[in-house]
């Protein structure tokens, strides 16, 4: 019985391996096949990728976008949702600008998709690089990422109100850690300062994981980590969530730590901290692709959303699972861009300010 099982595993492994190796060699000749593609696009019933699909992450390894993209790659491979392999590539340079420009310059290429975070808006606004989300084709919103106010569990603050009072009393000496500069974490911090009147020293770090560790080590006083970046430390009893920056409590009732679930965290608004912020986790393609090609990916991501692994990820990270496509999605992105432009203008984060 066991031997049979092992044999099966080995067989499957062999298959997987052949696939991976062919994906490697395929990537190597990707440039060559780009030329062939021009001549080999006859009208077919439903479009399908004809060579490996590049999945660009405009952020470094280990962050939230990276975790999500690699999970998606794993799901697609494991469930055989696509005939061609998917290759995940991190292009994190220039706060993701490198990745976005790469997709912008690949106009008409249906074998490239990109996952976005708020740097879709913040990077061009803060650095002035020649890029706008309108240089891309929106495919689908996969989820929205929540933001939570975290403190070290050794600290006495049990509520956001207590914490904000302490921060005010400290007269600007409290340190807020966050990912990057003039990006989502600092925007949320600015909004907290504006709403509460407390002042923080904002300390930018490279990634969300690093921020959580600095908080555990008491090198900063608080963070606005995404749930998935800090959940492990919460479960380990090192961090405490105070409030969530959403309009209503999170819909997850599974107990995580101290007998509390994500749903037990009060909204910041109910704590007198009138700040709401959600971050896009969405998929875009280059400009100049056909509707058929967009539809293929919409369909693909619908299938991904049905898998148990995806549901586990959503649960772990307490994501808001709103799904949007087409015109509705484009409209949402447009509003969000305006909101970011306003927020960043108020904070003095714009490149030409």
């Amino acid at each position, binding site marked *: 019985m066991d031997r049979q099982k092992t044999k099966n*595993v080995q067989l499957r*492994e062999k298959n997987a391996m052949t696939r991976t190796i062919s994906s490697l060699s395929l990537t190597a000749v990707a440039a060559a096949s780009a030329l062939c593609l021009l001549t080999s696009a006859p009208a077919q019933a439903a479009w399908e990728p004809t060579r490996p699909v590049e999945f660009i992450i405009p952020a470094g390894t280990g962050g939230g976008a990276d975790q999500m993209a690699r*999970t998606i790659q794993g799901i697609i491979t494991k469930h055989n949702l696509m005939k061609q392999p998917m290759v995940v*590539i991190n292009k994190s340079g*220039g*706060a993701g600008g490198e990745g976005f420009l790469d997709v912008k310059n690949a106009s008409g290429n249906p074998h490239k998709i990109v996952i976005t975070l708020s740097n879709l808006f913040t990077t061009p606004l803060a650095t002035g690089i020649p890029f706008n989300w309108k240089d891309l084709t929106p495919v689908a919103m996969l989820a929205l990422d929540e933001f939570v106010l975290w403190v070290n569990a050794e600290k006495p603050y049990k509520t956001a109100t207590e914490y904000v009072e302490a921060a005010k009393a400290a007269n600007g000496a409290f340190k807020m850690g966050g990912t990057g500069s003039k990006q989502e974490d600092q925007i949320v911090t600015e909004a907290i300062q504006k709403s509460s009147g407390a002042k923080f020293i904002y300390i930018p770090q490279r990634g969300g994981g690093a921020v959580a*560790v600095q908080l555990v080590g008491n090198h900063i006083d608080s963070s606005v980590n995404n749930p998935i970046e800090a959940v492990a430390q919460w*479960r380990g009893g090192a961090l405490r969530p105070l409030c969530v920056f959403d309009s209503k409590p999170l819909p997850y009732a599974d107990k995580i730590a101290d007998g509390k679930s994500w749903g037990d965290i009060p909204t910041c608004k109910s704590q007198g901290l009138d700040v709401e912020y959600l971050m896009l986790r969405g998929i875009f393609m280059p400009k100049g692709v056909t509707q058929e090609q967009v539809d293929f990916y919409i369909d693909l991501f619908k299938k991904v959303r049905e898998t148990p692994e995806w549901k586990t990820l959503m649960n772990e990270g307490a994501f808001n699972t709103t799904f949007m496509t087409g015109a509705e999605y484009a409209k949402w992105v447009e509003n969000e861009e305006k909101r970011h432009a306003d927020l960043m203008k108020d904070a003095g984060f714009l490149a030409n300010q």
Partner: protein
Amino acid sequence: MFEDIGNLFQGFSVALQPFNIGVMFLGIILGVIIGVLPGLGGANGVAILLPLTFSMSPTSAIIMLSCIYWGALFGGAITSILFNIPGEPWSVATTFDGHPMAQKGKAGEALTAAFTSSFVGALFAVIMITLVAPLVAKFALKFGPAEQFSVYFLAFCSFVGMSKEPPFKTVASMFIGFALAAVGLDTMTGQLRLTFGFEPLLGGFDFLIAVIGLFGIGEILLTIEEGLAFKGGKARINLKVVIQTWKELPKYWVTSLRSCLIGVWMGISPAGATPASFMSYGIAKRTSKTGHKFGTGEIEGVVAPETAAHAAGTAALLPMLALGVPGSPTAAVLLGGLLIWGLQPGPLLFVEQKEFVWGLIASMYLGNVVGLIVVLTCVPLFAAILRIPFSIIAPVILVICAIGAYTVHNSVFDVVMMLVFGVLGYILKKTNYPLAPLVLAIVLGDKAEENFRQSLLASQGGLSIFWSNGLVSTIMALGLIALFWPLIGAAWSRLRPAPASA
């Protein structure tokens, strides 16, 4: 404690299943190939091969992936020694004495020393992980921005004055590195620096591009100038070399032990394997009796950096397991894999997933043993590469370098930059500017700058944060001593009443 040892043996029994041993060999071989190809690197390699493991049980999968990691660590030394092309940042220090040894026809000895030292370093770190994991994890949390900066400061300081070249040339070379490291986005302000509106420069200069160019292409240019003679062709190629080298190695046990400790400390702190290897080489050079000969092909100069790098690389996995925080990009990719296997990384992994954690730790022991066997049996094979005439192998190296440079970011611009760095490397070598400080500054420059500015933000501009507690002031003091060591040494010998030498 006893329970843990029981768990470890349970882990061994899991790791020793025939399927898992097969997976181990496969992982090591794939890893060595990844390590040999510059640019592919551990993180990319693991990411590409990750889907391969989704159909396995989590324990087999992590055994395979960690073996790829060990394999890549071993493989990095091969190109450093044979061709002076470090495939990974922590292999740079290995080239200092490893490549001269190969040129003298002692490639087999150098490879054996490198592999064996890697093994010793990794084994030491695994034993530390087994015995004191929770304690050590807490130590890692003590490192805030100021402490991190002090570690980088120590790494830079132990380098100045270490080179054969005049200290000012070292400093000049280091500052070119700092300038190059500053290109791209400044994490602290979110502003672009030194890109001059030129889009390809957004991402700054990747260390790998610089190293492949400076060392690899530069070396090829030099060899061409010297008339295509490939030194080291007469390397002995049989397995006796391994035994003979092993007879010599125990002499360096002090260096070895010191390098292990430096490595474990750097790996946990987590400054990483690169400062560990440089620091260990620097200190070995200072303290060794044959220190003045370092750089000309001393075996001790291979032992020190390799031991430290691998102790650090292994110890870096500890924060990942105990804190859920990846200590390196490779560890980050591994973490992503955990999720697919249905495991929750983080502080509770040790409690909730005992079988997995101890299976992994057991595979660290066995994977290293398997790795050592695989690479040592291949030593003659690797050394034989040097017998191929240079005019045949040079184009091959050039092509591998170009592919490596392209792979880093899938960008043709990087290949062009590699060639530019190659010319720069050639010029610097001809004018006797040391390359290593430049590379060190590119690798660690922006991290050091970031931590320095984070510290100053936290202290609101006060420099006193760098001696605000015992830990940070000790490391800073060590750094200053290392920086002024040549002066201190000179003063000391003058103050001491000269013995009857006159």
